[in-house]
């Protein structure tokens, strides 16, 4: 159609529908708060707090006049023979139980979200739930009866106890993946396995990691009870403090556990931030 002069009010089309501004412009605009979020300054503040707590503990520990104290107290507070080995043992219990949780719960979660097993999912979750519903003490005793004394019994008991958060988060993370994304992948000829490993799991990583972080913290906390069945750990020192009515021993043991837990929570937070796939 040749147009001599244009009487029609043709809608002027916008050049291209808006694109969200890049991250570069966000900083300048919103100032400190944006800077805080962008560099996750909160994430880097935590180690400072933990170091401060460790410093306070160190000063307190040095100020204790162990020479004047009774034999029992000084013995319980010896770094080389008591506190350090207990810390290592504590971490070992927490580490192995968390590893077992991940190795069992993530594949189980994957399996229970597959169409073939979807129906049994609720039952398994109920069993995992019962692990957490039982008192931790009772669970330890139960495993003591099954596996006998020692750290490995504690590891298995804790693993059972912390199964639920990882299992549930794996299932929720996978269920929350946009159906359209899966449909598109399948529609282009990706096999089920490829969709799982290339699409679903990467997209569920943030949620699964959050579950693992919870399990890890649970395990570090619960490992203080391992001494009950001869598993060792920092619970030994705390228990000594209680039994001997020595506040200084109690405080040193308790704060050490707190430092370990806070440190690993922070490690978990860092992992969540940097292992999350880009683009989300």
């Amino acid at each position: 159609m040749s147009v001599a002069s244009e009487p029609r009010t043709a809608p002027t089309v916008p050049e291209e529908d808006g694109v969200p501004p890049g991250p570069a412009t966000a900083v300048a605009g919103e100032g400190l708060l944006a800077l805080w979020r962008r560099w996750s300054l909160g994430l880097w503040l935590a180690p400072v707090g933990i170091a401060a707590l460790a410093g306070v503990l160190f000063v307190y520990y040095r100020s204790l006049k162990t020479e004047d104290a009774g034999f029992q107290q000084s013995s319980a507070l010896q770094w080389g023979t008591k506190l350090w080995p207990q810390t290592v043992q504590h971490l070992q219990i927490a580490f192995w139980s968390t590893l077992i949780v991940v190795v069992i719960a993530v594949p189980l979660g994957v399996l229970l979200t597959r169409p073939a097993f979807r129906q049994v999912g609720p039952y398994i979750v109920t069993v995992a739930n019962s692990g957490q519903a039982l008192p931790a003490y009772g669970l330890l005793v139960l495993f003591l009866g099954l596996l006998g004394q020692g750290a490995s019994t504690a590891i298995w008991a804790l693993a059972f106890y912390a199964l639920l958060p990882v299992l549930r988060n794996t299932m929720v993370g996978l269920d929350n993946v946009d159906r359209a994304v899966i449909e598109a992948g399948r529609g282009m000829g990706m096999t089920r396995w490829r969709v799982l490993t290339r699409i679903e799991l990467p997209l569920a990583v943030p949620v699964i990691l959050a579950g693992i972080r919870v399990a890890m913290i649970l395990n570090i906390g619960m490992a203080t009870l391992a001494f009950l069945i001869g598993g060792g750990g920092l619970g030994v020192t705390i228990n000594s403090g209680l039994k001997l009515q020595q506040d200084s021993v109690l405080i040193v043991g308790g704060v050490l556990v707190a430092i370990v837990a806070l440190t690993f929570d922070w490690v978990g937070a860092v992992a969540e931030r940097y292992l999350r796939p880009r683009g989300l």
Partner: protein
Amino acid sequence: MSSDAKIRLDNVEKTYHGSSVSAVDKLSLDVYEGEILVLVGPSGCGKSTTLRLINRMIEPTGGRIFLDGEDVTTVDPDRLRRRIGYVIQQIGLFPHQTIAQNIATVPKMLKWDKNRIAARADELLTMVGLDPDQYRDRYPKELSGGQAQRVGVARALGADPEIMLMDEPFGAIDPITRERLQNEFLRLQAELRKTIVFVTHDIDEAIKMGDRIAILGERSQIRQCDTPERILAFPVDEFVDDFIGAGSTIKGLNFEQVGGLRLNGHPHITVDDPPSTGIKVLRASDQEWLLILDDERRPLRWMRERDLNRSSGSYLDEGEEVRIRLHSDDTLFHALEQMLQSSSGLCCVVDEKGALAGVVEMTHLRKAIRRAQVEARRHYEDLEAN
């Protein structure tokens, strides 16, 4: 059964487990190479299900599916789907992959080498109107809806499939962007000549995009399958008539061109003639409006007798200026629009040089509509007779 169908559905059926009524009931349909076949129908009629039967996202419970004459009803569905482009309304870009990685999905599965994949991604981005340097390494969340669906189309074209399935691809996009994407897609298709099955619930989109349209009723029964022109001119039953809705005649005008009309002469004079000649010419005809042409026979103004009486002879002030001139390849819909805007109710058609070729009157449109209807009816009568 002709064998040149690119896609053939032969009595394809889908009955869901535990349901006594089939979702798709014995559907037979041929899609020819290089055409866009639109499946359109009310919601719940099974058009999406039908589309997904073709790439076996839904496994048929009966019948056969042929691609290029090859029975693909039982081949490995994953391999089958890598030969077929697939675009869905929700787009479904992989949010954790860059645009280039998204587009590379199928080529990667087909084990193309890296350089070829990268070159293909750039080529496709350019094809869908996105600058590769700017968009290649972006993530989907940085795209608007329209841009995301461009990438969706590019991804479906990744390994250059001969067949594309599109499930309401532009359904979730704002109207202005949608129209632009439709136009660009049609331009692209004119170049690529893919065989496309396109699902929509919007009859206007179907008319615009389809070389042929299959109007589906309940359980995916084909009520009418034909070119948009014929469907608009001759809806076979009340269901189809209801579905295409009001204004089908006017929509049909989109498919006829001004050049197809037989236009008769219209009274006119040139600017060199005095108004009195004009009055004479006008009285000799049965028309109300006289056309004033310039020296090269280009239409300038419309004038009635009283305009001529008032005119000083320069023909610059009275009457109505001719603002729009149609060419022979403009549609009758354009012609109608211009006629409704002009007080003369007429519209000038010019040749390449701009000289008057004829004047479109309302009766021309009426005749054209009549003719299309008669032709379509005769076509269906012939079909029935054979």
